[in-house]
């Protein structure tokens, strides 16, 4: 369990694990997670294989002014792409600055 023992300050995105499946955004009770993604053909398929697509994450945003740190997204993520982070989110002069994207969340 990744709970209080490892620190509860904020939530970190493990970008390479995220499949843009939307489970966290749908489970979030505070509606604080925003995800944009698109699909791309999978490159380097073996010859003759059926063409396949995969989701590519474009934007992953947590609005810390809305987040209540319940951890449901961490629990629900089927791919362990969200994890508790001991460090707290920095204070900010306005609520807009508390919208953290992929860069801030993977830092």
């Amino acid at each position, binding site marked *: 369990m990744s709970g209080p023992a490892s620190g509860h300050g904020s939530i970190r995105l493990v970008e390479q694990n995220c*499949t843009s499946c939307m489970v966290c955004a749908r489970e979030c009770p505070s509606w604080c997670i925003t995800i944009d993604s*698109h699909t791309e053909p999978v490159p380097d398929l073996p010859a003759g294989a059926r063409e396949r697509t995969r989701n590519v994450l474009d934007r992953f945003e947590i609005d810390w002014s809305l987040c209540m740190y319940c951890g449901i997204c961490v629990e629900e993520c089927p791919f362990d792409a969200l994890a508790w982070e001991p460090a707290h989110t920095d204070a900010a002069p306005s609520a807009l600055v508390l919208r953290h994207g992929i860069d801030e969340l993977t830092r």
Partner: protein
Amino acid sequence: MSASTVPPADWLAAATAARAEGFTFCEWLAAVDEIGRPGGRDVLRVLLVLRHLERPTQTRVLATELDRDAPRLASLRTLFAGAGWHEREAGEMFGVEFVGGDARRLLLAAEFEGTPMRKDEVLGARSGSPWPGAKEPGESDASPSRRRMVPPGVPEAEVWGDRDPAAPAPGPAEVAGSAVGGRARRRRTR
């Protein structure tokens, strides 16, 4: 930890008897709205968890079921002073009247109207704001097409909001059953 369900009229007597058996610590009291879930019924369930202080692993769980339209129950605060806090919360959140209890609000603002923890309480502001979960994987804009996803707490528009004005008002079970979120279903009745 299974609950023994008692009739509402026996609530105080059952708690008094449990206390006499040594379950002297009131750990928790709360309500659950049973409406709208599969097999759900038109009741509010009130639960009480008592703990035995000399045998701390032992708990006693009492439950009772109240009519959703007129939920009244005897207060336990003369028995367990701490239960008064829980009763104030359950009272304001679920609209339960605890007879002999403290009717003051605990968490809600004085001007707030409604019973926010009841399952047929519609989160009105949410029905008017875009839900981040409406998008499908691989999308950047919510497509209005196909099998629409709806957020929990916001009933389907056909039930609440865009409902045919000539139709009768939706009942609590219909609103609650419709507000569980997930894929918007086709209308099952009518």
